[in-house]
């Protein structure tokens, strides 16, 4: 059973699992009808349209063995109820789903999508988070707070149903050439606002690798909490430069208010989650993931490169143009110097004669 199949990640995971011959039956659970673009993926998936409360009855009846919970929204959608609906889905939805899972006797496995936002954001944070790191400060962002709540429910579930393998996957922000998230939209703008005086260290994970990890966590047994991110680090300024965009550093307060105004107007979705990320940065240790899953996700730089492939339009300072400019300036300087030397030579020659 997969929740959140009307969304980008959920639909792809469900399709992947349905294509796997080892899995008998895949049920997609979502309160919304999948959009036309994703419906094609879900041909082999039995779809049940129900919200979490109605679903709790369905889960017991269906006798699901594994449950993948992906119905977690990372940003409030102003067209679908905003923050209130987001919290309803993330926190209340997860709570009800986990309550249902607790009552499902046949359940063996629970896979939860979490995020590296679970580590919070504090200036005292270590540079690299391991799975054991406790958040030092409650984050300001709504998504990060939801994630902390969700992980709290999973902890309770683990205590009450020790027989069920609970896998919590803490994903770094997703990137790929086709994915559409807050961060991909952010990096696709021609002018990218950043926080003045801060250059956060970022990590990304490629969507295909995330799918592979989710698939394996259903097929194989990997109880525990895992960081899922591409190795290596890009700083925000570096990422903006690699994307060929121009960064506009703003003071943190200014950026917050500008982002708030932009949100109410309906353009851009930079929230406190993103600002926290841009101030503090977030780097995780993926040693445990690589050891347990035997799978190494693409590095952060490669994931970003792939994202770039799909978003060439709108970049101004591309590497090619810079190289051309470099060559032009170098040639210019050489010419000027050659000319200067020539005049100097003739002057010296004139002196000698």
């Amino acid at each position, binding site marked *: 059973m997969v929740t959140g199949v009307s969304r980008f990640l959920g639909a792809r995971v469900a399709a992947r699992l349905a294509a796997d011959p080892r899995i008998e039956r895949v049920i997609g659970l979502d309160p919304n009808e999948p959009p036309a673009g994703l419906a094609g993926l879900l041909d082999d998936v039995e779809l049940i349209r129900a919200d979490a409360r109605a679903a709790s009855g369905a889960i017991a009846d269906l006798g699901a063995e594994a449950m993948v919970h992906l119905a977690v929204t990372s940003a409030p959608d102003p067209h679908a109820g905003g923050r209130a609906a987001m919290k309803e889905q993330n926190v209340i939805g997860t709570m009800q789903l986990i309550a249902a899972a607790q009552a499902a006797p046949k359940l063996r496995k629970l896979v939860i999508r979490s995020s590296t936002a679970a580590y919070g954001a504090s200036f005292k944070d270590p540079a690299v988070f391991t799975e054991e790191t406790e958040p030092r400060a409650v984050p300001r962002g709504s998504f990060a707070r939801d994630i902390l709540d969700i992980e709290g429910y999973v902890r309770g579930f683990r205590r009450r149903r020790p027989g069920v393998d609970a896998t919590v996957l803490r994903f770094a922000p997703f990137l790929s050439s086709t994915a559409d998230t807050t961060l991909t939209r952010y990096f696709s703008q021609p002018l990218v606002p950043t926080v003045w005086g*801060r250059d956060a260290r970022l990590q990304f994970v490629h969507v295909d690798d995330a799918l592979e990890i989710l698939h394996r966590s259903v097929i194989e047994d990997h109880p525990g909490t895992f960081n899922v991110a591409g190795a290596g680090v890009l700083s925000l300024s570096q990422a903006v430069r690699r994307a060929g965009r121009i960064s506009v550093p703003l003071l943190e307060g200014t950026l917050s208010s500008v982002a708030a105004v932009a949100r109410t107007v309906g353009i851009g979705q930079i929230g406190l989650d993103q600002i926290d990320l841009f101030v503090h940065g977030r780097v995780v240790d993926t040693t445990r993931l690589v050891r347990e899953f035997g799978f190494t996700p693409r590095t952060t730089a490669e994931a970003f490169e792939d994202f770039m492939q799909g978003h060439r339009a709108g970049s101004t300072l591309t590497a090619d143009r810079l190289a051309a400019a470099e060559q032009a*300036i170098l040639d210019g300087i050489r010419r000027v110097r050659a000319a200067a030397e020539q005049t100097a030579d003739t002057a010296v020659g004139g002196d000698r004669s």
Partner: protein
Amino acid sequence: MSQEERRRALPGHSDFTLPAAAAPKAVNGRRPVPRAGRRTQAADAPVPDAPTSDAPAPEPEQPADVVDVWDQRIAGALAFLRRRLAGAYEIDDFGFDPELTDSVFYPMLRVLYRDWFRTEVYGIENVPDTGGGLLVGNHSGTLALDAVMLSVALRDRHPQDRYLRLLGADLVFRMPMLSELARKAGATVACHPDAERLMSAGELVGVFPEGFKGIGKRYADRYKLQRFGRGGFVSAALRTGTPIIPVAIVGAEEVYPMLADLKPLARLLGVPYFPVTPTFPWLGPLGLVPLPSKWLIQFCPPIPTAHLTEFADDPMVVYNLSDQVRETIQATLHTLLEKRPDPFGP
């Protein structure tokens, strides 16, 4: 450009405008003896130039050589600029950017290190060539200049040109701009996970256990080591089995002699102390120019900890070891101070 590079560049300039060739020789003559010696070996060109200053014979080969150097330099600088603008460089998990550090930070700091503070380094052979090490130093000087000078000393003098990864107070990482400069130069927040991760990766980690108590002390208390906290640095070293290398730094106390500490103002600004030095609040930004004291840095023999790994949580072992490090640094400070009778001497 560093002094050294400028000196090497001189023949090129003098060739370009012939009459100016006499000027560097005159400066050379007035310099003290050791400097003159270093200079002749660094730049051979002026020596053959001296007897034949009016003969045009060496001219055809020298301009060609000079043009090459400048061409390479411009091309190198442009390529560097292009790489920076295109984001084509690597940083590590802690945000350390070796390219930026080597080509921007160190050349600037080296001017302070060599020409302003005339730093002398002893015992560099005590720093291991490979593998981790925890360098523990005395902290002083109002602004933590001693930490950056120590990292320049290691990069410059160590046979393997090693980098020092400093551990800084979280106040540093709270400030915009400064936090990113510190991260790019290889520093990180002083906490157990980071320290242990760096040491296990075989890096040299620099720590100043006195913290703000050290840099915020009055000039009257100079070279008196403050309390070493709970010895957290020792347990981090024990857990990873990394040798501890005590380091004594003399000279940092005099760069900004702190006469008084305006505590209420400091509390208002949210900083641990507000210094009053002979120059600071009075001369405004000019007060930030450090006084040119003479610096000595001594690396002491390493204290091995590999055999004590299981005692990392034993407070007695940790405390004793921390005390041993403290005493070593204090004793070394005294011997170094005897070597340097005049703080502002040559």
